[in-house]
């Protein structure tokens, strides 16, 4: 080729620089496209890692036993919502070998007051086992102990926000609060835990499950043992989670007399939940990337559009260049390189904007987005090749211009 790359590049820069407004507008599509690819992929990955962390915050090796059949949708779960009882939890603790700790949980949203101060809290009736299973830490005082659990003493442990709302800077330990207008004594405050699946865990109040049953929810008609919403179980070690899952299923089927019927409960391991969430977030990332890809495509078409206009506008220049000895390949190289330069500069600016929006995302939301080098590499490659592909048609058109016609235009 008579015309070398460096020559062409400096020529293209000069030409693009001579028409800054148009060059800028041409790049806009690619800028937006690139920024959105990077930002969207980062947002998707942030959502993914957020969800993963949420599950991991549930505690490792934890199994969740819930009433109803999760596989058959929410209505199936609701209609059998009382199939799981406190006695089931006690049986799991006593009979399943692969199990470490068992934490039955019976919760209800209730009004919690102290004098004039009041708040709505998720009041969880549970046992001391809640601490090892759910892996919580105490900021002050203690959690419920076995004595509280056995006796009918009205002791309460507050979530950090509840404590803040009702007590402010005061020490809440040994102070009284009213839950559903019943007086409880505060024995501890849990460290802030953030929210999990939209549930603010710091708006929780923990009380002994027996107190919950006896004094708040009351005995259920026709039940020998009170129903619970969740039994959280920790496996004895990392390798025994699936064994525990199997043994719990067998035990509960026996206890519920389900010989020829389907399970009226669900045992899910943290891994099950993670897998489900991962399959959803994978699709989320894909959809986001696809959407962003479309804007990149639109950006490419924008480049093609303007380059075609530019070929028409510069017909005389093309004719002149051909008359003084430019080959068709020189002309097409010139226009292709202009398109690639636009795309790459646009890509760089877009990448900058994308990274900027990631920083904003990290500051403004609980998602902590990482700047993915692969996303940057991909969007650079894509924008470069977008310039190349969408620059080809205009370049071809320019190369095929008849110099005589071009000079007379």
């Amino acid at each position, binding site marked *: 080729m008579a015309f070398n790359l460096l020559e062409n590049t400096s020529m293209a820069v*000069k030409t693009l620089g001579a028409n800054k407004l148009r060059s800028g507008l041409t790049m806009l599509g690619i800028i937006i496209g690139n920024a959105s690819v990077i930002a969207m992929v980062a947002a998707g990955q942030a959502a993914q890692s957020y969800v993963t962390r949420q599950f991991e915050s549930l505690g490792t090796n934890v199994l969740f036993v819930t009433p109803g059949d999760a596989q058959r949708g929410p209505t199936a779960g609701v209609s059998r919502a009382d199939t799981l009882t406190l006695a089931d939890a006690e049986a799991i603790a006593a009979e399943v070998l692969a199990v470490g700790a068992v934490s039955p949980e019976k919760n209800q949203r209730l009004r919690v007051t102290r004098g004039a101060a009041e708040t709505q809290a998720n009041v969880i009736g549970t046992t001391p086992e809640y601490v090892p299973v759910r892996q919580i830490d105490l900021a002050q005082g203690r959690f419920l102990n076995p004595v509280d659990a056995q006796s009918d003493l009205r002791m309460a442990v507050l979530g950090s926000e509840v404590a803040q709302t009702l007590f402010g800077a005061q020490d809440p330990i040994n102070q009284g609060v009213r839950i559903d207008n019943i007086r409880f004594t505060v024995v501890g405050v849990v460290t802030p835990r953030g929210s999990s699946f939209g549930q603010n865990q710091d708006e929780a109040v923990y009380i002994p499950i027996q107190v919950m049953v006896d004094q708040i929810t009351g005995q259920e008609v026709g039940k020998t043992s009170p129903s619970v919403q969740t039994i959280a179980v920790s496996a004895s070690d990392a390798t025994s989670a699936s064994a525990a899952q199997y043994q719990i299923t067998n035990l509960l089927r026996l206890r519920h007399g389900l010989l020829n019927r389907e399970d009226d409960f669900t045992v899910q391991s943290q891994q099950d939940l993670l897998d489900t969430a991962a399959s959803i977030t994978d699709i989320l990332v894909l959809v986001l990337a696809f959407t962003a890809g479309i804007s990149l495509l639109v950006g490419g078409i924008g480049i093609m559009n303007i380059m075609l206009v530019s070929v028409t506008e510069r017909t005389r220049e093309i004719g002149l260049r*051909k008359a*003084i000895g430019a080959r068709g390949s020189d002309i097409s190289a010139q226009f292709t390189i202009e398109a690639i330069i636009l795309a790459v500069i646009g890509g760089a600016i877009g990448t900058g904007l994308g990274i900027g929006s990631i920083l904003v995302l990290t500051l403004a939301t609980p998602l902590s987005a990482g700047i993915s080098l692969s996303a940057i590499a991909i969007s650079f490659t894509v924008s470069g090749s977008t310039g190349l592909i969408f620059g080809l048609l205009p370049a071809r058109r320019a190369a095929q211009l008849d110099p005589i016609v071009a000079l007379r235009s």
Partner: protein
Amino acid sequence: MALIHLQQINKVYGVGDLEVHALRDVNLSINPGEYCAIVGASGSGKSTAMNLIGCLDRPTRGSYRLDGVPVNTLEADALADIRNRKIGFVFQQFHLLPQLTAVENVMLPMVYANVPKPQRRSRATKALQKVGLGNRLHNRPNQLSGGQQQRVAIARAIVNRPKLLLADEPTGALDSQTSQSIMDIFASLNRDGMTLVMVTHDEVVARQCDRVITFRDGQVLSDTPAILLQVQDHHVPQRPT
């Protein structure tokens, strides 16, 4: 040997009923060092002949040898190289690139000729000095008058040291005084041995050439030394200068 040798050249545009014979059996030879004008009414075929001579177009039939090379058989890329090395073009509308300075415009043909970069600027500067624009090297076209722009275009046309300079109505966009300064440059280039062929409407311009070739209806009507033309056409009033 003739520099330009056209033999039985035909150029036909369109097909079937729409066929237009722009050139019919044209034979023409121009020797090195000649200074020719091609004249004729519009539609006479003079522009088509100019395009063929300039290797911007190919004949439908006939053979064309430029400097001994049978250019009617060459491919587009080879023709581009011929235009680059053997021919310099000057146009009525100058056709300078507005984003480049005078010296950069003049450097352009050397870019396509692969002249090493350091040589380009010095050669372009010399060419501009030759046309009297040594003090306007870094002006852009819009900072130059029409005559100055045409002089930049001439510098660009001669910078690759072509054998042939083709000018298409080079004075058509200029006033008569400026036209004369351009013609003076052409005359001086011709004295240095450059072969010049120009298409023109302007009688005054044509008379300054050594040879006037008149086209009509796609054929050469007359081919006369300019000195004879003046005697024949004494009734044509001289343009005031």
